[in-house]
């Protein structure tokens, strides 16, 4: 009973939050609603017994991702909002709903027909974090390391991209402009 109440409560909350995120025209509202939604999502994880995932969700999303967005937003003039042309909103909704139904169908089908075998069954006697850790560092070790590298690359990438001199594009500039840039792209003397 408690579980049901919790589920419906959080479900309603997340749906509302995300709807606000998608629909509002204020960037600030959107980001706030989304941060809230993320936290509510973590509640599901806790209900489902995936404690570790729930923790990660809160830390990564609300801690890191939302912070990044918040910093990112500071770069932009959020007050000058983008004019959103509403072309055929019906199509958008129809497509969204259709896609959702299909996703449900695809997910439900194997579950309903009991076609799924548990590869790594959850052991009852140990905690979730421990179990996750055991699987993660045995079976999923390589993906885990790759994910680590990916994060590193992403971090470096983010730094480099947001760094200086990136406000010029070589592809969008014509040749004279490239040649006349202050540094870095000096033509070789005597080359002509």
């Amino acid at each position, binding site marked *: 009973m408690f579980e049901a109440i919790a589920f419906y409560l959080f479900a309603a909350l997340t749906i509302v939050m995300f709807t606000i995120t998608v629909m509002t025209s204020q960037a600030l509202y959107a980001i706030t609603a989304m941060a809230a939604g993320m936290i509510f999502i973590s509640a599901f994880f806790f209900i489902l017994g995936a404690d570790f995932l729930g923790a990660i969700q809160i830390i990564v999303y609300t801690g890191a991702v939302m912070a990044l967005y918040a910093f990112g937003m500071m770069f932009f003039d959020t007050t000058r909002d983008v004019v959103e042309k509403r072309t055929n909103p019906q*199509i*958008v909704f129809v*497509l*969204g709903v*259709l*896609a959702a139904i*299909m*996703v449900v*169908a*695809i997910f439900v*089908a194997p579950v309903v*027909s009991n076609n799924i075998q548990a590869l790594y069954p959850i052991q009852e006697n140990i905690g979730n974090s421990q179990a996750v850790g055991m699987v993660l560092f045995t079976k999923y070790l390589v993906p885990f390391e790759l994910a680590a590298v990916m994060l590193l690359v992403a971090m470096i990438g983010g730094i480099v991209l947001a760094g200086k001199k990136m406000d010029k594009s070589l592809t969008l500039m014509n040749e004279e402009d490239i040649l006349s840039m202050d540094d870095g792209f000096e033509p070789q003397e005597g080359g002509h």
Partner: protein
Amino acid sequence: MELYLYIALFAPLVGSLYASLFSRSPKSQHVGIVASGLLFTSFVSSAILLSYVMGGHTVHTEMMTWIAAGDLYIPFGFVVDQVSVVMMMVVTIVSTVVHVYSIGYMDHDKGFNRFFAWLSAFVFSMMVLVMSDNFAGLFIGWEGVGLCSWGLIGFWYHKESATWAANEAFIMNRIADLGMLIGIFLIYWNTGSLQYDVVFAEVGNLQIVVVTWIGIFLFIGAMGKSAQFPLHTWLADAMEGPTPVSALIHAATMVTAGVYLVVRANPIYDLIPNVGIFIASLGAFVALFAASMALVNRDMKRIIAYSTLSQLGYMFVAAGLGAYWVALFHLMAHAFFKALLFLGAGNVMHAMHDELDPFKMGGLRKVMKGTFIMMTLASVALAGIYPFAGFFSKDLILEVGFVEHHYVIYTVLLVTAGLTAFYSFRLVALIFHGEERYKLFGIHPHEAYKFMLVAMSPLLVLAMIAGAFKMTYFQLVMNLLPATQYHIHSQTTFWIMTIGTQLFVIAAILFAYKKYANSGVSVPDGTSKMENSFVYKLLWNQYYIPKIYDEVFSKPYAELSRIAWKQIDLKIVDATVDAIANGIYKTGENTRHIQNGNLSSMLRWMVVGLVVLMTLAVAFSVGYNVVGA
């Protein structure tokens, strides 16, 4: 003897090649002399072979393999037997005469050397046709004479009418050749060989329906070459060629190839008397049909051409009724007097500066005595007056018809004999008698070269005395052909018929003289009552058959071809291909708008794709489960 065979066969080819060496150079007398000399050699060899064959032997050689594939084996094999040697004699005699004559006739022509190249090539092809020992070899000659006929009819290629006639002749012959080819296929698949001896030995074992088809298809081939109805129109148009060509090809030799084929294939036709009756009936019809057209025609050469056609009809009657030796005999006799007639007409044409309308001539006997005598005698022979060649051969055909109880055919042929006499002497009368109408047109006729007349004389002699050889000939060919003697049993009937026929023919001749030899004849201007009658118009327009062919075949074919190209090929077949290509191209062109660079719409398309893919996944898995269950 094989040596003589090869000399007889290849001498004309050598002559042709020799002449073609000089075909680009201006006229050189030696070309004509060499070609004629070689033909004379060929004639002498044929004569030697004739004497050899008369001794009861035949010559049969195989030169080399031609086509060998699967079970099919076709050699270049040649046979000189009683039938082919007769044909060889006819061909070499007439062609030698025509060659010598042509030296004079083509004297002023630019294409003198070329003419001899073609003419000798023709003789070679004709010899191959005659001497071959198998159907495929016959077909080589068959097509070869067709080719040479094309080249010679269209010899004056700058004339539109000549080249048109040449093409018409070639194509009409091709239609018939298809029949012939099918006949050959039938023979091969049923007897396993194309050699005459094998085929004729085997043909008796075949089902009669197969033999009938073979006979029909071979005869279709013969119809084309011998210009039988309905493939007859080319022969009259072929008169566009030089006159010696008409004499050699379109009177004496090539057009009789069809008769030769039927005679040669007599073991086949003996088995199928029904086809024989058809051949005879068609022959009788053509005899009358052609003679009727000759009655009103005003073109000297065409009149003689129709007469040829009519005589070919006679030959087919004889061949169809199983009297093969009679057909061959008439073929021989006809070759002599008809070639003579044509050559005489050539003299007249020369004298009249290529004027062909006999109504514009008249009274020429004063200036062209020699020609006058020759043409008159040739016409007498054609009319079948005793004791000229025509009497012996033509009367015999009438007797055959009578003896075989085909009285309708007999009557038709009798009437035709009268018509023949009439139109022949109408021509003679118009040309040589009466007023000198040519003076109105400012023409100064002159007699041909002496040597041309001398060259013609052997034909004159043969036309007069060929009948005397009848029994010798009969003894010769009975070795190979059914030796049926056609005698009317009652002596009285025989005399009544013979004398009656003679009187009838003489009456026709006198009527022709009375009507056309007087001084009142003038150039018809289309106003007289006779010229406006329906029958005259029908005959004058050749029963409208050329016109019908033009309207029913030529024009629709051209139109259909144009439609096939412009409408079907370009607008349907090619357009379909292009439409497929264009469809693909247009799809790309249209869907290019999706790539308008607007990320938002791209995202939408992405979702559409996602939905489609997921739908497919669900649909297939559902379908799979349903089927699987």
